[in-house]
């Protein structure tokens, strides 16, 4: 930094005004001590303080990145013009106040970020206690899209078996910008072909912040979490579906070793239990807009209709198939529309 901005200027060397402008020049020969102690020195001193504070604020600005929502503005006074002592004091006080505010904001951020760092450590040490919790880089005051997410290994099986682990994301999606300028302009056909091959990458969605301590951030997290977190079951965190699947599997396995007719009944009950549990999960996820299960749900409507018509009536088989297909198609359309409404416009959504 140029030190001259922060050092007191040598006022004696400054050229004196020959006109009647601020500051008033004394009559010739009356360059007395009174003149040397006019407001010029006060203004110069205030300007030096402002320069130092501006530097402090600039450094805070640099260190605050990538945190958002911190106000660095200090209102101006309607320049550009020479400010009086009072006005310079106002600017200096504004800067001093702003520096204090920014430091306080940064301290608050630091407390939350430190708590989130501790949470990551605890999540890593004991993932079972933090199921589905996700902490983003933003939550610990760092740039980038990295996140720590407690997920089950091997999907539903890991969920049933309690194989939870912290998965670290691979970072931000790759950017797709304009083609290099030295490439020839593509023709309309080439552009259309390229669009089909490489659909435009949507900008990254706002990332949910699962763990935040202050209320403001908590509200935002809850709002965002609605779209990116798996929906909660109506009965809360009790693993009813998982238990049903587990019991269903046990019955299925046991059914093979038990003599008929009890064995058949056990297998049938096991199948029904597993199907119901799976269907409950798909319905919950589909209608929460979390993950689409359109085909599965449509099949859950179409196949029973076909089965009932085929088994319980004497309707010809082609008509049974047609009715089943019609029910499948109609319900698929309805389920697609429902998912589009709940997910905010997405036709389908696949998640790993």
């Amino acid at each position, binding site marked *: *930094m*140029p030190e*001259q*901005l922060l050092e007191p*200027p040598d006022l004696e060397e*400054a*050229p*004196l*005004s*020959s*006109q009647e*402008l*601020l*500051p008033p020049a004394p009559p010739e020969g009356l360059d007395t001590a009174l003149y040397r102690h006019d407001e*010029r020195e006060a*203004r110069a001193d205030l*300007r030096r303080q*402002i*320069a130092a504070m*501006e*530097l402090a604020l*600039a*450094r805070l*600005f*640099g260190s605050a*990145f990538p945190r958002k929502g911190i106000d*660095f*503005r*200090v*209102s*101006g*006074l*309607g*320049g*550009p*013009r*020479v*400010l009086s002592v009072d*006005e*310079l004091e106002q*600017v200096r006080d504004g*800067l001093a106040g702003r520096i204090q505010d920014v430091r306080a904001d940064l301290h608050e951020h630091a407390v939350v970020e430190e708590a989130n760092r501790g949470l990551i450590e605890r999540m890593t040490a004991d993932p079972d206690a933090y199921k589905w919790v996700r902490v983003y880089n933003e939550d610990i005051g760092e740039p980038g899209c990295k996140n720590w997410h407690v997920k089950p290994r091997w999907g539903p099986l890991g969920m049933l078996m309690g194989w939870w682990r912290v998965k670290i994301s691979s970072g931000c999606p790759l950017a797709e*910008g304009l083609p290099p*300028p030295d490439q020839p302009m593509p023709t309309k056909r080439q552009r259309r072909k390229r669009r089909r091959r490489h659909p435009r990458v949507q900008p990254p969605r706002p990332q949910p912040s699962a763990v935040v301590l202050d209320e403001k951030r908590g509200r935002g997290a809850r709002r965002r979490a609605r779209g990116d977190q798996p929906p909660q079951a109506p009965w809360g965190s009790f693993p009813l579906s998982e238990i049903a699947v587990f019991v269903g599997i046990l019955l299925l396995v046991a059914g093979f070793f038990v003599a008929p007719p009890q064995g058949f009944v056990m297998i049938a009950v096991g199948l029904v239990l597993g199907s119901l549990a799976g269907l409950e999960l798909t319905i919950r996820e589909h209608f929460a807009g979390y993950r689409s299960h359109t085909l599965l749900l449509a099949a859950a409507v179409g196949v029973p209709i076909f089965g009932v018509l085929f088994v319980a009536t004497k309707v010809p088989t082609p008509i049974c198939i047609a009715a089943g297909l019609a029910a499948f198609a109609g319900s698929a359309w309805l389920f697609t529309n429902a998912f589009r409404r709940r997910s905010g416009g997405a036709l389908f959504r696949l998640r790993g």
Partner: protein
Amino acid sequence: MERLPDEWEVAPEPGWIEPALAEEFPGLSIVSTELESTTGRSPEALRERLRSLSDRIGGAQAIQLRQQPIPWAYRVFFRHIGLDPDTTRTPVEQLIFERIHDGSFKSRNRVEDAITIGMVEVGVALRAFDADRVEGRVGLRPSAEGEGFEGRVSPLPEGTIVVADEKRPLGIIFDRTAEGRGVRRGTKRVLLVAIGVRGVPDIALEEALWVAGSALRA
């Protein structure tokens, strides 16, 4: 960097500063140089330089900009004259903001592109005027009571710091240019002006004029 014709060299001419203003703001300076050039669409070489400049400037540079000596000196001067540099951005910060916002430095015309290159490379505030519409040397002074300029309906508040020639204001410092005084279609000679503040070395002003001048002659 384009090679300049041997016969051409930027010869910065120091402008004048009204004494009371110089007394209040030691280090405030203005230098100018005159070039024969026309406006209009930038040639490919100039646009290529803009693209190359765009590639060198990113978010990290934008964040750290205000801690660098020259941009910081302008921010301090803005505070000293009653402007909030986060609302009324300093010239170089405005350009960097547009670069980040638009994704690149957009080519506007030959003169503006040359000024953009000069300002971003060095960090110094540059202006351009139609040299044929400037009378005498340029300088900085506070406006007088009731003074205005072309294109402005109301008079300037007294004491507003303006860039002026020896007859009239040409524009507000770091702000609007008087109508008809800036570079426009039909301009034959361009007056490049660099405004320095305390903390900006004289050599930086000359360098900014040289960079912009060479870009203009590309």
